[in-house]
């Protein structure tokens, strides 16, 4: 019994020692920036605050048709390459999001909201391609309308292609889970983004 425990212990130590020696853990800081195409989710689409008022054109039983609006993101990333296939990538981004909205003719509005987005991305690399996903915490830093929540938790998933070891192209989808607007039905952040990333070689 004692012998077998000792054997297991030795095996574990040897395994970790080997994996430690083989794993070339590298860290590369970088920047990423690109274009956002964002809108707010529709919710159930019904305006629960609807009432009859001929003189108020915004007041329809439709909660609004939300459509895409362009924005941008820019920020810092850190590539912690743990194994050949797996990279942990913390990010700090400034992300300009929002939505267009309309409740019929003459009621168009553009809603802008910007976040400081801190994310942890799990990146799986296959040669030059990668798939990445992870959660973010978005702290609202600016908006042009009366948002109902100052914080957003979001999940993102995306794919990327590396032209060189340093320069990459990325496309992502991000979905918030805390409603930006909950006046009638709930409207969450949805962001499609395309952009470039560049990591620096240390030393």
């Amino acid at each position, binding site marked *: 019994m004692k012998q077998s425990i000792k054997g297991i212990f030795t095996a574990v130590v040897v395994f970790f020692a080997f994996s430690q020696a083989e794993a070339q853990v590298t*860290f590369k800081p970088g920047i990423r920036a690109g274009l956002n195409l964002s809108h707010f989710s529709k919710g159930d689409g019904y305006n629960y605050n609807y009432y009859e008022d001929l003189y108020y054109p*915004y007041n329809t039983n439709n909660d609004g048709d939300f459509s895409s609006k362009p924005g941008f993101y820019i920020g*810092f990333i850190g590539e912690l390459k743990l194994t050949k296939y797996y990279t942990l990538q913390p990010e700090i981004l400034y992300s300009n999001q929002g939505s267009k909205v309309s*409740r019929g003719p003459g009621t168009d509005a553009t809603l802008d909201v910007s976040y400081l987005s801190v994310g942890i991305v799990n990146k799986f690399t296959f040669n030059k391609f990668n798939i990445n996903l992870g959660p973010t915490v978005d702290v609202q*830093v600016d908006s042009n309308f*009366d948002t109902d929540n100052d914080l957003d938790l979001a999940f993102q998933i995306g794919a990327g292609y590396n032209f060189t070891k340093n320069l990459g192209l990325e496309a992502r989808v991000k979905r918030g889970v805390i409603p930006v*607007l909950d006046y009638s039905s709930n409207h969450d952040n949805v962001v499609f983004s395309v952009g470039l990333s560049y990591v*620096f070689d240390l030393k």
Partner: protein
Amino acid sequence: MKKIFLTIAFFAVVAVQAQIRVKPAVRAGINFSKFTNSDTDMKTDFFVGGSVALNFTKFYALQPELSYSRQGAKETLYANYSYGDPFDPIFSTRKEEYKYSLDYLSLTIINKFTFGPGFQVMVGPAVDFKIADNFASYGIENPSDIDVSLVAGVGFAFKNGLGVDLRFKQGLVDIFGYRNTTYYTDTYYEDNYTVDDVVLNQTIQLGVSYTFDTK
């Protein structure tokens, strides 16, 4: 006298042996700041300053900093008085925007821990001396002249001297202080500045720094 000399000599020897490296740096960035316990949003502004890192070990540095930090908060009143529902957040018209500014000269003592290729974890206290504010123009009582804050953050330092960091700064002093205006018993006014709520500074700082190579 001899004792004093010996003491100085002792510390000089210690300093030489320990090889405390002194590294000055400049640092600037963006402040996103607001007030807690209020209806304010984040105001975007900047900070700029300098620091001196005392590298006691490879792992630990004490880093006093002096910076000019523009904080405050933004408050926007949305309403649509012309017709309809004044509370509809989508179609309410922006009416007024207040930008409360609080400019501080901030003395921060950062404890900086460095890991691996340059990861940094920073934590420390700060004393903020108010230089200017614009509260009078909004008819609000003068806020506190001093703030004491706690700062915590993470960063990364490149070998060439450039660094990036993200910090969270939480004020600890009620910036309006005690005011004897508790005659508002109406809970409707709880969010106003007119009652004696504890209102604190809260700032997110995104900064870049450059450390000079002194040898």
